[in-house]
């Protein structure tokens, strides 16, 4: 019995930086304010990060919202591995963690948080996963980078940076929590 190594298969960090640490910081601050404004405060908001890098992004957003609103909204993580439509096409991998805040998501506004929005398939899987957890009043989507090439009718409500890319390019988001630095790199697919 052979099992593929868990965790993302991330290549070496190479490429041209398109967002530096300060840009990431500014983008998250702006998204935090947009979330507050659009939902008229953050009382009913729950942030659910999509592992791996969506989770620290959700935590950072919650902290910034907390600075403005006085109290940070609850944060959780939503693993979508089991819900992916390409699950039968790749080697099996261990699922990530799903942690829903104790109060659940019923009748709340769930903001899904991910690092890169690409085909839209991860978000479709996240909507399915959310469906099994409860019934939010609304679901919104926040991403640090939107690189285009959608394959499904899905768009983000909050975008840190729109980054028009070609399919030959790669986008890597690096975050201090996982990679010891904050930046977004644009590279060439090898």
């Amino acid at each position, binding site marked *: *019995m052979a*099992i593929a190594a868990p965790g993302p298969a*991330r290549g070496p960090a190479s490429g041209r930086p398109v967002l530096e640490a300060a840009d990431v910081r500014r983008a998250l601050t702006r998204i935090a304010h947009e979330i507050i404004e659009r939902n008229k405060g953050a009382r009913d908001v729950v942030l659910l990060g999509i592992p791996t*890098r969506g989770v620290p992004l959700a935590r950072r957003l919650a902290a910034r919202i907390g600075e403005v609103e006085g109290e940070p909204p609850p944060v959780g993580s939503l693993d979508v591995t*089991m*819900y992916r439509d390409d699950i039968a096409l*790749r080697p099996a991998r261990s699922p990530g963690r799903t942690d829903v805040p104790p109060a659940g998501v019923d009748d709340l506004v769930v903001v899904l948080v991910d690092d890169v929005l*690409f085909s839209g398939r991860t978000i479709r899987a996240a909507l*399915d996963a959310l469906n099994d957890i409860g019934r939010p009043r609304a679901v919104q989507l926040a991403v640090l980078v939107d690189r285009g090439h959608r394959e499904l009718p899905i768009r983000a409500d909050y975008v840190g940076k729109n980054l028009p890319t070609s399919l030959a390019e790669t986008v*890597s988001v690096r975050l201090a929590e996982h990679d010891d630095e904050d930046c977004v790199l644009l590279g060439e697919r090898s």
Partner: protein
Amino acid sequence: MKRHLLSAADLTRDDAVAILDTAAELARLADRPIKKLPTLRGRTVVNLFYEDSTRTRTSFELAAKRLSADVINFAAKGSSVSKGESLKDTALTLEAMGADAVVVRHFASGAPHRLATAGWIRGSVINAGDGTHEHPTQALLDAYTMRDRLGGIEGRRVSIVGDILHSRVARSNVLLLHTLGAEVTLVAPPTLLPVGVGSWPCAVSYDLDAELPKSDVVMMLRVQRERMNAAFFPSAREYSRRYGLHSERMATLPEHAIVMHPGPMNRGMEITAPVADSVRSTIVEQVSNGLSVRMAVLYLLLSGSEPAIGRDDETEGA
């Protein structure tokens, strides 16, 4: 890539840890209102049981159903097997039905191996107990329970007590626990130890009282009366007296130690009712952990496919 789980010896340390970690994640599903995942939608799992086993069969059945697989229960009794059909012909039938996985329980040691290697079926084969040979998912759920209760397995001392000779549970546990870094001691009367036990990666003792004070885990095995066709010990009473776990004996265990039993129990024979029902006993937990572990095994064996195709990886696969 190997797609079968036939023996606990097939699992590397990384494989075993991946299964236990996945099981831990899947266990959290039990707290949700909808205890189901769409992961194995469209896959067919066949439970092929040549021996009675309600516990293991329902555990595999529920595990497959929680992952949205279609499940066919194929019991030998009352089926074409009782009309004389061979394992090969049954396998060819299952293949024709499009079985993606066959969970097999057989009274003959090695039957799952035959099924996996003879080329009769293309699906995964999961050994759910073969003769006196192995029962790898039982060992995995036992390891899961130990890790859950004690915080880790590495360096822990595990005593497995009773009918080692007829026990596939003991053999699988010795192999897996050794892989995971535990020290295993088999405790049994000499007549209930298999030939060649000296080559197993474990110690052997005939004296339960000497082992208990240094054990983190005591695993009591069922006395398999149905296999006791020779005089392995003088009387049930004598066996109970020397190798049964009762309250006074349990009191000699270290404070953190746990008592395990793969079930079904003979209360009053290898374990007394007060011990079986004590807070140290994990017997009921083992059942629910079995479900999570079997879900993890089915998920890891069946969900993916090689070679990997698909364009993006998760770092940019949004």
